[in-house]
């Protein structure tokens, strides 16, 4: 696969990163902004995600109907997402629509934020919040982030609470937008079949006049402490438990080892958690994973169990974590690496997957990593690096949150 990397910064500070693949059938483009719920103050919590919706409501030139219609005229697979740390807007199209796609993404990121659209979309956001309240896994995750990070900005909810969304004003959103959505705080990532000189010209044409922003991010040191919180909801049948403990950040070289460790301990199949908890049906699901964040990171446990077996499952999970510090073997590390290597190859064959990967990577590190570099780094991970990682991050302190029916049900 002849993948070729290109980089250019426009005079206004807009970064453009490209990975060209002449074998691709399609072209993917995404605009990634380094802003998310962690950059919000409490009174405007949820604004990054709400803004993601508002971007589709039109620019000075287009109405919301135009925005949706044009994306569909391009036959695009398009979407957007908001995390604690970034928001991204992207489209995957056939190469003949390259210019129209870049032009359209440019309109998306210069929204008019009309009051009437804001009022209508607020109701949709409230429906989205209600939808997630019907998802116990999501409720546990929100609570876990809230208590684990405490006063740290990562504790902020992505969706925000219904009450804060109700109160949010259009002008507060506009002010937040002006402050954070511009070159200097964003990158355009393009992948697949493309001509880089053309991409640069198009970016200049449609985004070259955007003003640069200076959007710093607060990086206070997280203050972790062990804590355990039990939430009850009598209408539930099952128990949903999550635990979170510090891990390496998205900038840390140890993140590759962390990903391997997550697979060794908690992959859905063939991991230590699988054999200790799922193979014998003590838990229906038992995952251990790694969330790299900006300047800090987390490992997490996630368990779904019968209410009367939750404590047993949690004890086993914690015991397995401690056991791994002492008896890790070379074979399981190699197997986990092979699984990750396969997923990298599969992702590399699809432009959309690579675009999301290199865009996200740039937001965190201002660095391009080819598939080969990732593969090479991955292959250097070994038992010793995992052991060192567990000395550096000994799964302590741990925050645990559970949600279930309370008294065990029949």
């Amino acid at each position, binding site marked *: 696969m002849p993948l070729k990397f290109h980089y250019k910064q426009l005079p206004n500070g807009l970064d453009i990163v490209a990975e060209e693949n002449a074998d691709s059938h399609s072209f993917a483009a995404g605009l990634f902004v380094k802003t998310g719920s962690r950059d919000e103050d409490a009174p405007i919590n949820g604004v990054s995600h709400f803004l993601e919706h508002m971007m589709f409501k039109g620019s000075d030139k287009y109405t919301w109907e135009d*925005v949706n219609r044009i994306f569909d005229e391009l036959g695009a697979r398009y979407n957007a997402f908001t995390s604690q740390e970034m928001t991204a807007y992207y489209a995957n199209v056939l190469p003949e629509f390259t210019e129209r796609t870049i032009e359209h993404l440019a309109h998306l990121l210069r929204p008019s934020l009309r009051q009437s659209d804001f009022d209508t979309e607020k109701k949709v956001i409230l429906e989205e919040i209600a939808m997630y309240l019907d998802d116990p896994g999501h409720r546990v995750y929100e609570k876990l982030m809230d208590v684990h990070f405490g006063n740290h900005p990562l504790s902020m909810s992505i969706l925000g609470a219904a009450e804060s969304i109700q109160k949010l004003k259009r002008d507060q959103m506009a002010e937040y937008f002006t402050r954070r959505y511009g070159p200097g705080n964003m990158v355009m990532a393009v992948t697949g079949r493309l001509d880089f000189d053309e991409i640069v010209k198009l970016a200049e044409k449609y985004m070259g006049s955007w003003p640069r922003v200076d959007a710093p991010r607060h990086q206070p040191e997280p203050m972790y402490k062990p804590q355990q919180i039990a939430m009850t909801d009598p209408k539930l*049948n099952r128990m949903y438990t999550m635990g979170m403990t510090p891990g390496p950040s998205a900038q840390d070289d140890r993140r590759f080892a962390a990903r391997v460790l997550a697979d060794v301990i908690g992959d859905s199949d063939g991991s230590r958690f699988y054999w200790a908890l799922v193979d014998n*049906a003590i838990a229906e699901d038992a995952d251990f994973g790694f969330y790299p964040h900006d300047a800090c990171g987390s490992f997490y446990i996630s368990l779904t169990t019968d209410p009367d077996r939750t404590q047993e499952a949690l004890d086993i999970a914690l015991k397995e974590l401690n056991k791994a510090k002492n008896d890790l073997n070379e074979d399981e590390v190699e197997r986990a690496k092979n699984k990750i290597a*396969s997923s990298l*190859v599969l992702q590399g064959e699809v*432009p959309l997957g690579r675009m999301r990967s290199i865009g996200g990577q740039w937001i965190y590190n201002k660095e391009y990593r080819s598939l080969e570099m990732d593969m090479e780094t991955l292959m250097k991970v070994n038992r010793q690096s995992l052991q060192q990682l567990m000395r550096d991050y000994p799964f302590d302190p741990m925050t645990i949150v559970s949600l279930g029916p309370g008294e065990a049900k029949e």
Partner: protein
Amino acid sequence: MGERYFQHTFDNGLTLLAEKMPGMQSAAMTLLLPAGSSTDPVDRLGSATVLSDLVLRGAGSRDSRQLTDYLDGLGLQRSSSVGIHHSRFSCAALSEKVMQGVPVYADIVRRAHLPQPGFDAARNLALQALAGIDDEPRQKLLIKLREWHFPSPFGRSSMGKKDNLEKLTLELCKADYGRRYHARDAILAIAGNIDFETVKADVAKQFGDWNGSAATPLEIMPPPGNFHHEDQKSEQTHIGLAYESIQETDPDYYVLRLALEVLSGGMSGRLFTEIREKRALVYNVWAGYSSLKGYGSVLGYAGTSNDRAQATLDCFISELHRFTEGVSADELERAKTGLKASTIMQGESTSARAGAIAHDFFMRGRIRTLDEIKHEIDAVSLERVNAYLKQHKPGPFTIVTVGPKELKLPS
């Protein structure tokens, strides 16, 4: 069949399909066995699901752990699932690793150990999954919608029933393994940068002497009724809608698919425009085609706050009725562009292609090329779409709701 697509049916009834995708490093395999929930014995619903877990717990010369370790060592990205018609085993990785995995899959479907402790655990996990359905009302709605819409046994959930699962034994599972895991009507599809003759020789060696037996005919029963409400104290009311439509093999299939793109294809689709963008009644609303062998249907979903559920249902139905007035030239053009683009982009993923050629063969007895699909889409005219919509009025509807309050149904 050209240099890209290959098809061969062995004497025992197993069909091998392949798509050669030069330039790919990966390959993907999909194995479909005629052991779907529709062939679960009537008093043992959920048994295909238990079996699809149990067969992975040791096979051939490897015990459960050795088997998993070996497949993990190859780096295979694996999944298994049970649908209406089939039990499905899939994997993807570097192409040579997938080919090394094929003999293990032969062990799994031919020489599984089926151990007692494995059975106990597999059944227990199936019961746990079943208990979780009430916790996720959206998932529950989609299960109930199928149950109330399709004739039995095609509306069954693969998750089964509690009392059936409780009565299931290892002996019954063993007999079931012999009855439903066989070569007749099995489909093995591989897509990637592979050499077909080599693959064929490998597969012949692993599966050539596998027995086949004829399928037992199914007893078809009408669904329990058209309207159903499940009382649940959920945050939102979850609304499901369905009506019968043409089959996937019908000459008008792409006429219908394009019409459905207009209804719910992208963000300019009518449901999204009218129900979400204009009225802000929902976050999630969609309608799409559901293809079973012998049955084509349109299924739809909307989730909304309880006090706005009636308005959402009414609006959904009125959009479906408006459908008979036809679509515009612009709408059809966008639908075509979208459907063609997604067809072409499917050609970038070995997993998507392996799944698609297996599905094609099951539905039509042959693989369709991506070009053929593009031509079929291009051939659909506005007149045909509008004539079709005039003749095929949506309905009668099956309507299922999950939420705290029953809704008023349309007359």
